[in-house]
């Protein structure tokens, strides 16, 4: 996991550095690209050093990665987190399309059933309460516009 994340950071740093060059103009020290370039270079250097040291220290190996992925505890965690991410992403994306109340109702019914294992009656009651009362509170207490 750490290897993947650090590699993404390294690549992102490189891309930011390349893009920053386009924003450089004379005088360079006051141009809009100077700090993004410096920051991107620092990201590339630090993440590169971290990756090299981790490789040299034997932290990354195919065997280690395989063991991590196949351990029952990690697989359960990955399953749970992937399920949550998929569901939460679908909820966040559909909210502007179908409206907060309906999206929240659908999301909570699925989430409470899967993650909390509640029976249908309690699931429906909790989901309906949150989907209706929460926006009302925020609307009246904070004059919030509901998405």
């Amino acid at each position, binding site marked *: 996991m750490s290897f993947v994340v650090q590699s993404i*950071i390294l690549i992102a740093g490189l891309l930011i550095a390349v893009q920053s060059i386009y924003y450089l103009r004379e005088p360079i020290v006051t141009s809009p690209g100077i700090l993004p370039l410096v920051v991107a270079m620092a990201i590339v250097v630090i993440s590169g050093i971290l990756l090299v040291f981790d490789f040299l220290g034997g932290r990354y190996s195919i065997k280690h990665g395989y063991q991590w992925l196949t351990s029952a505890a990690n697989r359960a965690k990955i399953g749970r987190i992937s399920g949550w991410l998929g569901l939460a992403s679908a909820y966040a994306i559909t909210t502007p399309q179908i409206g907060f109340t309906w999206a929240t109702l659908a999301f909570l019914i699925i989430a409470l059933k899967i993650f909390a294992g509640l029976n249908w009656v309690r699931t429906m009651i909790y989901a309906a309460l949150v989907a209706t009362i929460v926006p009302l509170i925020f609307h009246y207490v904070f004059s919030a516009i509901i998405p």
Partner: protein
Amino acid sequence: METFQILSGTAKAFPTLLTIDNLLYAVIGLSVGITWGAIPALSSTMAMALLIGFSAALEQHTAIIFLLAIYSGSVYGGSISAICTNIPGTPAAACTALEGYPLFRKGEGGRALGISIAASTIGNLFGALILILFTPFLLKLVLHVGAWEISLLGLWGVMISGSVTSQDSVAKGWLSGLIGLALSFVGMDAITGTPRFTYEIGFLYGGLNFVAILIGVFGFAEIARGLLMENDADVPPLENRVTISMTTLVKNWVNILRSSSIGAIIGAIPAAGADIAAFFSYSVSKRSASSSERELFGKGSYRGIIAAESANNSSVGGSLLPLLVLGIPGSTVAAAFMGAMNLQGIHMGPMIQISHPGLLEFIFASLITISILMGIIALAVGKVAIALLSVPRTVLLPCILPICVMGAFAAQNTVGDIYVMLIAGIAGIGLVASGFPLAPIIMGVILGPLVDLNFRRAMIIFQDATFFDVLFRPIGLTLILIILVTLVTGLRRQIKIS
């Protein structure tokens, strides 16, 4: 003289503050904050992050008192679950759990809760007092600080937050800070008007919304982390009433003063925050205890609870000191407060007295009021918070995601911010899983514009100056040395860890 003026200004701010609306929002803020802080997996930063967007619609003064109430309340709230379940509601209450839970098991839960309320209230008041006393002095000093020094201070703020919040690798803390800085560059450049990293996407021209990133990182990602936590703890009923033992407080007055001072000082260090203040003060209190008192540590020591609680609450005032004077937040929660103030059109920093006369005094008066109210509200909502502890985390956490979505949207009423929150949240989960601290990202995002703008402004001012003219400015040189010391000590720690 300035201190006297500030004190009299603070006294004059009370009539503006003590309106029904303000007091009502203070009570709501404290109740929500205490309850929120009490629930494990829900942090103070998360509470602030979710409510910033909504506070934008409130009147300026009401928003300030409401957010400060959330801040103070959530820092205290962590001690409730720490004492009753041995699971600290917030990291700042970890030491309280060490001492409070054994007392709870002995049947002294009510007294332990009472002592934690009193210590928190005194700590909060002490932090406010430090803030009032030191702000005029620092504001005078800040008059000698120019764009160059502000950019160095901002840079140091990001660096030190990376150093103090990373557990297994300082380099990862710095990387997090740099990622935050990189995110802050998105949008129209304030000096030349050049769009940077916008890729012709409309809502990116205004920059990435800080509130959406904050909610993503401290809301969305924290919910996912909470869902992976071990099973909920059982909450046995509180056997006795919550009582405040005056004898214990009087016996510990030196401990309270010392711990509150430590809390206020540590709170002022960027990103050091309430948890580090509590740990440090707890260990100092343990070391300075008599041998008989020291034996009680870990088995239920009121001295330990007082040290941790007065320190973590006085850090609230401390964390506001660099924010009010320099525009550099002392903690992620203070950074969130800064973001909320930006939404209100208030830009913290050296010019605050000129741009918003009377605002500082209002903030001081609000902190004092909240500290006093906190003692009362904590006694009232303590039982509700304990009852909420028995709601399973798997039921509670999914119900918070809709608030995350609404909070991200409410800051600017932009759908794009919901997607920014989602992406920041997913990235946050990956970063946490890889050992990257999240606080420096927030510091980077909030301090990035300050560093960028002031660095380039300084370069324009110094365009005819030599390199040595810039280097040997006294305050600037001191800051460069501080940055170098932070860098060297961080590197030494990194090598040691490696």
